[in-house]
């Protein structure tokens, strides 16, 4: 199925938390400021419903997304209000992909963990948590994975200030 088909099907089965679809578009010739959007289409999902949305995606027969290919976050700008949590799903059976985006407010970055649905999410969520400071509620093993346990700050946030030293070692 292509993206349109998947989206229509998600609408038809009333997938929990589905907000809208965001598709690439050409620039609007009338509006000079609108430059359009390129790249992938994705569905936007309510952050609190992400895990149950993923469960539907996995269990529905016509979607059958067996693999969670990637789960990551992005900080679109320094002054942005929200993080994006982006999930890439892949279906072996039907050979299609789906990109899912959930918006998480920076002020209280909490999102339910997808570990119960896909165990693949476990390490990805640990990485997201240490890099962005997003709390994955219900994660079984919420330790740092790449960074040292005592690392301060969340490096992939746009407002991250590089440390000058770590345990007496100069980082300059």
């Amino acid at each position, binding site marked *: 199925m292509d993206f349109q088909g998947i989206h229509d099907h998600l609408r038809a089965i009333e997938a929990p938390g589905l907000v809208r679809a965001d598709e*690439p578009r050409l620039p609007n010739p009338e509006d000079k400021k609108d*430059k*359009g*959007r*390129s*790249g*992938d289409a*994705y569905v936007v999902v309510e952050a609190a419903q992400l895990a149950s949305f993923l469960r539907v995606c996995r269990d529905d027969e016509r979607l059958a997304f*067996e*693999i*969670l*290919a*990637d789960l*990551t976050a*992005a*900080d*679109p*700008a320094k002054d942005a209000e929200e993080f994006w949590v*982006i999930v*890439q799903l*892949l279906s*072996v059976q039907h*050979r*299609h*992909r789906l*990109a899912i985006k959930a918006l998480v407010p920076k002020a209280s970055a909490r999102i339910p963990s997808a570990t119960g649905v*896909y*165990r*693949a999410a*476990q*390490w*990805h969520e640990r990485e997201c948590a240490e*890099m962005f400071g997003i709390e994955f509620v219900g994660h079984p093993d919420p330790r*740092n*994975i*790449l*960074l*040292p346990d005592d690392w301060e700050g969340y*490096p*992939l946030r746009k407002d991250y200030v590089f440390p000058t030293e770590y345990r007496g070692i100069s980082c300059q």
Partner: protein
Amino acid sequence: MATEHKPSITFHPEPRQLPGGEREYMMDVRTGDLEVNMGPQHPATHGVMKILIRTDGEMVTAAQPHLGFLHRCAEKIGENVEWLQYLPYTDRYDYLSSMNNNLGYSMAVEKLLGVEIPRRAEMIRTICAELNRIASALVAFGTYGLDLGAFTPFLYAFREREWLLQIFEKACGARLTYSYLRIGGLFNDVPPGWLEEVAHFCDVFEEKWQEYYDLLMVNHIFVKRTADIGVITKEQALDFGLTGPMLRGSGVDFDLRRDLPYMLYGEAHDAGAWKVVVGRGEKGTLGDCWDRIYVRVAEMMQSVGIVRWCLANIEEGPVLGDIAKTLKVPEGEAYVGIENPRGELGHYAVSDGGKVAVRCRVRGPSFCNLAILEDIMPGTLLGDAVAIIGSTDVVIGETDR
């Protein structure tokens, strides 16, 4: 894994009175569990990875991978350098398959840019990516032999790999960090005589491949060491998001090159140049170490098929598409997953229309494949643990990025 301390000998405080008037002190002698740091400088962890294992005698009862010793902030660097400038960094996460990394990143940016790639460039890209897949599989095969104590296949594999590296060196001037494929095509066309040498390599390699197979793959000790060991079921593999040879070794017939075709792989597959290799549980259970390493070894020959098809169909032409000198990528976001030698290499790039990426995410296949160790290592012997780590074929540069 809790780290409670249990002394191996404990004395009971009260002595027992024996009939003869002697007193006997009772003690519990316990063969304690050992908690062993396998790594970061252990020969079997293929780089700087630590696996904290708990063993009862030779039996591994728990295992926990610890990563991050080679973390080089690749994703953060991606947010600080220009689009094209990030290309050399892609060489460095999975340093054994730099061409494929270049390809994945270039394709992600090209998707945002929406440019067409000249056909000759696509052909050469495919050849390079497949030759690099062979080179990478040779390391996987060779070091796997090394893990199991067979030193010689390793050097045979590196002999052929050396030739491949020379071939790459002739095309781009580097042996490991190629930076040859670029956004929009290639940096430059291949030198004269290069395609003939590749064809010659393909012919010679076929013979050598048979030798590897006879020397190691069917060796009785090797089979007994790998068959039925570290079995990953189909469900487990999908649940953990394994990709590439790990997934195919578990019997899932899925290859991004065929099923979500990119570049010229779909065309080559339709022309019958190659087919997807899937583990069949030939020597033991489906999804064991032997199947995984077999998929890698057998894929080398399929890659030779793709290269041969490309050599037969290559045509003259430009190798660089219509690309501006200073890239300004239109706003948007794109995820491109390609079939790396180790699995799905995903590049997720976000642009706000500027010269620098907003987010440059790399989904390393080794990172995801490694997560399964916690599940499949307990209950195996120490020697099996090494075999299992080897069969995941991790490149630590990629798990840590």
